[in-house]
């Protein structure tokens, strides 16, 4: 059974907020005792997703949760926006596909950098992306 030990939220409204999210995720992953490579992976994934929230979702919120199951601890990040949403999620997950000026690696890349990945999106209503990285 997964327990949420601790939870906090941050607003993503400007480029500086993306930096703040990275720093918060770094701090939490260090406090959980993540190794350097695991820290780097989850911080990089958070950077990609925070930037997506800002650039494609028009800003939004991230919920940072510390998780615990019977065997290990982990970190869950839930990015939510009320932007235009994604009509074709499979296409958005394809490497190299981009609707903006980016490289089209954000979604697929952060999925590969995480142990669990979940995305729901409703055109016109917004997008919610959730990732988990276990220790």
């Amino acid at each position, binding site marked *: 059974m997964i327990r949420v030990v601790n939870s906090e939220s941050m607003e993503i409204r400007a*480029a*500086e907020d*993306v*930096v703040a999210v*990275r*720093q918060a995720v*770094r701090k939490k992953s260090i406090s959980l005792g993540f190794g*350097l*490579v695991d*820290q*780097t*992976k989850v*911080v*990089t994934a958070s*950077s*990609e997703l925070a*930037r997506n929230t800002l650039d494609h979702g028009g800003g939004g919120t991230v919920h940072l949760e510390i998780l615990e199951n019977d065997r290990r601890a982990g970190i869950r990040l839930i990015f939510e926006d009320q932007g235009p949403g994604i009509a074709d999620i499979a296409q958005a997950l394809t*490497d190299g596909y981009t609707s903006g000026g*980016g*490289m089209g*690696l*954000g979604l*697929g*890349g*952060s999925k*590969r*950098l995480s142990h669990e990945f979940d995305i729901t999106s409703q055109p016109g209503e917004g997008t919610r992306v959730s990732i988990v990285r276990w220790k």
Partner: protein
Amino acid sequence: MERIPILKMGDYLLITIQVDMHDKLALTLQNDLTEQIVTHKSKGILIDISALEIVDSFIGRMLGIIASMSRLLDAETVVVGMQPAVAITLVELGLSMKGIRTALNVEKGMTVLQNSLREERQDGDSSRQF
């Protein structure tokens, strides 16, 4: 305004990225750098990223843009000092950094730039002989 310092050393420009990069800072760096390449007629750009704890697709794209711009202005770019954890993460992220030359550290990066400049000058000399 916050900006990343660019150091001139002979034919080369040295940049050390130590702060968390964001859009405005990246654009300022691109402008400053291209101007300095032209002003100093620089032949090589060395970018030290050893202080960067992560490289995401935003920074990867910025490095690629800088390398392309510099190439158009006849200057070679070498990115040095990538941390091992960053390299592991970049591959998983799917960022191959194609078209960007890398070297392990500043010293090796300078050697790469000097070699490519020497080759270019030799080519130039030989073409004049004909």
